[in-house]
């Protein structure tokens, strides 16, 4: 049951979602992204299979130091993912979407039974992190909000999002992770190239952001591996595998498609969120909601033992 | 009237004072006893020291300056307890006693305006001396409160370490300007330069929180203090300080004390944890109605002077 208070923030995205179900036309769309693509992006599983093939044949443009150039303004093509990772219908609260899980093949989030029950309870007591302008963690940052800017230098890939002016800085210099005693909202990421794919490993998250508005959660022990690959000049294939045995019965993988923006001189907006959010926070608290406190790995393991 | 509660701190000093009165060579002394100038009366010492300085060629540092570095003791037993009272005062249960350390004016009295002299007596009834609260002593009280100090000298810095509440004074010798007037510091802002073989230190930017002695003698943040340190023999420093604050004193006045070089090999300065162990005493002071002296602004001091006239 999605949090109805967040519905108002995603109205614009609904328009985008409907448009994506139409076949790509020959001319640049007023929506502002390149529609010609080697792979259709309306269903994650279809896109994924196509992309894996296309990647093998594509020789991407490179940056001076040699890696593929992932820089640019990217528009997310994954309707409704932040609402629900699984396929879900259009309603008053939701855009709806086909879901983004490619593994397991049934497209369902493989939660332990206690965790699936727990998330439904949580959705009734806590607001989604985005409603409080809190950071979205990994991988939700990559599908919360529709527009991203990637800035690539030899040392790092900087991913800017429009969601509460968030940024993720991914070092590419092979450094080790920080100590496990440090927990960060967006975790600690390191990136390296495997052929033409940028592989990002993220640890040290704090487990407070949700994966979707259905309150799918994880613990601080979650290990996320993302893979970004250009499959043509204007399409980015993104996969994320989430591994947290405290909450999930197996690692599972989601796939997103990004299309390069065609808007001339586009400037990503670093909008103030929290500074204007006081009235809404009062509203949420007034009806008994609070911010989600997270669940520790230890507590999750106990719950698994107890079966609830 | 001296704050009786501070008397406890002087007990150890009394022992030190008594031992310093004994004849020197056969007994292990904390400082070098031989000196060009007798140091038992500041006025006498001062006159002698001014003469001795004229002919003494001090040991020097590699950069050619008099070597002031080392462990230095203020022989309280002989020079008395200036931190108790800058003026001459007798030995009592509360006080070591001693001669005046004021060498100018020649009468040895602190030249306070009348209102200020009345005010300090009043203050001593209501406030504890800064050291009772482990607060810093300012300039020049740091230089005569406590028997032992250590000087570290480099070409750019003169550093004075005190054994009271691990205080330090860093004095740059590189000719830089003072900090802005709106910055007030407990130990002020000091700048040093050499005049021949004398180190001259100018201090301003004090906050007027510390007293000059336990008799409550105070000053304001506009005080300007000039100190002069001169070696008059290998083991004696002649220390002078001129305090200039027309808001409180009718004229600048000068104190002088001797420092004697430490004689104990491998002596290490005590880093006193004062505040950390002072909680119970602060409670006692407060329950007896005493507080920490809040200082007096130059404006308030000038108004008091006006009212008096």
């Amino acid at each position, binding site marked *: 049951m999605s949090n109805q208070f967040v519905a108002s923030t995603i109205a614009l995205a609904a328009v985008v979602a409907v448009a994506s179900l139409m076949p790509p036309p020959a001319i640049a769309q007023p929506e502002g992204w390149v529609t010609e693509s080697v792979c259709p992006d309306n269903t994650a599983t279809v896109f994924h299979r196509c992309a894996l093939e296309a990647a093998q044949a594509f020789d991407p443009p490179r940056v*001076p*130091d040699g890696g593929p150039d992932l*820089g640019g303004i990217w528009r997310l093509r994954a309707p409704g993912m932040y609402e629900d990772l699984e396929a879900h219908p259009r309603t008053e609260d939701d855009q709806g979407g086909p879901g983004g899980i490619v593994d397991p093949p049934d497209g369902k989030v493989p939660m332990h039974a206690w965790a699936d029950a727990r998330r439904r309870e949580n959705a009734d007591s806590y607001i989604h992190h985005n409603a*409080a*302008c*809190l*950071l979205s963690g990994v991988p939700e940052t990559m599908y919360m909000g529709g527009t991203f800017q990637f*800035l*690539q*230098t*030899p*040392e*790092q890939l*900087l991913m*800017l999002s429009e969601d*509460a*002016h*968030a*940024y993720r*800085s991914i*070092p590419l210099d092979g*450094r080790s992770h*920080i100590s496990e005693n*440090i927990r*960060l*909202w*967006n975790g600690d990421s390191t990136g390296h190239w495997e052929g033409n794919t940028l592989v990002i490993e993220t640890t040290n998250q704090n487990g*407070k952001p949700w994966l979707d508005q259905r309150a799918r959660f994880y613990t601080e022990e979650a290990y996320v591996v993302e893979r970004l690959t250009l499959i043509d000049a204007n399409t980015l294939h993104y996969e994320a595998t989430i591994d947290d045995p405290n909450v999930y019965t197996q690692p599972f993988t989601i796939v997103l498609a990004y299309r390069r923006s065609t808007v001339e*001189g586009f*400037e*990503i*907006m*670093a*909008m*103030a969120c*929290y*500074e*204007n959010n006081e009235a809404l*926070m009062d509203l949420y*608290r007034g009806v008994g909601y*609070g*911010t989600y*406190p997270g669940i520790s790995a230890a507590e999750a393991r106990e719950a698994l033992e107890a079966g609830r | 009237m001296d704050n009786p509660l501070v008397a406890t701190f002087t007990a150890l000093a009394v022992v030190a004072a008594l031992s310093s009165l004994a004849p020197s060579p056969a007994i292990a002394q904390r400082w070098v006893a031989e000196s060009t100038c007798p140091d038992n009366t500041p006025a006498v010492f001062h006159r002698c020291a001014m003469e001795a300085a004229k002919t003494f060629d001090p040991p020097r540092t590699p950069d050619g300056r008099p070597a002031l570095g080392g462990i230095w003791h203020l022989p309280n037993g002989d020079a008395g307890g200036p931190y108790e009272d800058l003026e001459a005062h007798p030995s009592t249960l509360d006080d070591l006693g001693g001669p005046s350390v004021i060498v100018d004016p020649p009468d040895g009295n602190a030249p306070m305006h009348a209102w200020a002299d009345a005010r300090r007596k009043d203050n001593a009834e209501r406030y504890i001396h800064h050291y009772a609260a482990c607060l810093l002593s300012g300039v020049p009280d740091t230089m005569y409160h406590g028997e032992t100090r250590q000087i570290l000298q480099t070409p750019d810095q003169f550093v004075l370490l005190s054994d009271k509440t691990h205080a330090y004074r860093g004095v740059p010798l590189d000719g830089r300007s003072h*900090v*802005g*007037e*709106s*910055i*007030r*510091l407990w130990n002020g802002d000091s700048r040093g330069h050499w005049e021949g073989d004398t180190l001259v230190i100018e201090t301003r930017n004090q*906050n007027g929180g510390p007293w000059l002695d336990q008799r409550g003698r105070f000053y304001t943040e506009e005080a300007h203090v000039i100190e002069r340190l001169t070696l008059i023999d290998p083991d004696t420093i002649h220390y002078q300080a001129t305090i200039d604050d027309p808001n409180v004193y009718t004229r600048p006045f000068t104190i002088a004390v001797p420092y004697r070089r430490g004689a104990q090999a491998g002596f290490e300065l005590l880093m006193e944890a004062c505040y950390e162990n002072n909680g119970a005493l602060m409670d006692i002071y407060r329950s007896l109605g005493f507080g920490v002296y809040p200082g007096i602004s130059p404006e308030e001091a000038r108004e008091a002077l006006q009212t008096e006239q």
Partner: protein
Amino acid sequence: MKALVMLTASAASLILFSTAGQAQEAAGQTYTPPRTSYGNPDLQGIWQVLNTAVWDIEDHSGSLGVPAGQGVVVGGQIPYQTWATAQRHENYENRLTADPEASCKMVGVPRITYMPYPFQIVQTPAQISILYEYVHSLRNIYMNSSHPQDVIEAPWMGDSRGDWDGDTLVVDSIHFTDQTWFDRSGNFHSESLHVVERYTRTGPDHMLYEVTIEDPEVFTEPWQMSMPLYRRQEDNARLLEYECYAYLEGEVDRKRSD
């Protein structure tokens, strides 16, 4: 004679050649910084200030929670209009609650630079982004472009446009709110604030940061701040986070459930 002149000239050029572009910090000599692959001075890395400006940008004595400090305002005093001096005093009295930083809001420019946390400069040809630990503040400085005429809502970090003046990055920012303060002691501005920053590398690990503040609604004339930026030296130096409002909101929830 001619041969001697030529020899001297080549010797001179040899000296110039060897010192130019080197990582030297000789006093009085202008430092030539290394360049990015596309030819601009490279300002990248993790930087931080070491001063007391965040508490008070002017000279100040110490007080509980605040060390004494020398000001970063060039010339010493901020040239407030008369009414503004009174407002500043009022701000100071109410600083523990009225300062936006006290409620974990963004702190604007240039205060974000001298917050006591590291920040990271990332450069690309058309855009320089600066990432700050304090509530993940972000500034995107667009190069060779103009400010938009209007903004729907004033971004708390202003709208920034950058350009190169020799080896100095000059950043011009407008479209501020009036809700941010310059420090924790109540120095303030209006929405008409116009900030020009200059970032100049002075050595391998130092940068000079100079700021001109203009706000005709509050000050009698423009004024400046100046301070060094220091490169973080640790092998593992990196930005972590200070998610102030996350902690704040968490506290509110904890107290409500008690």
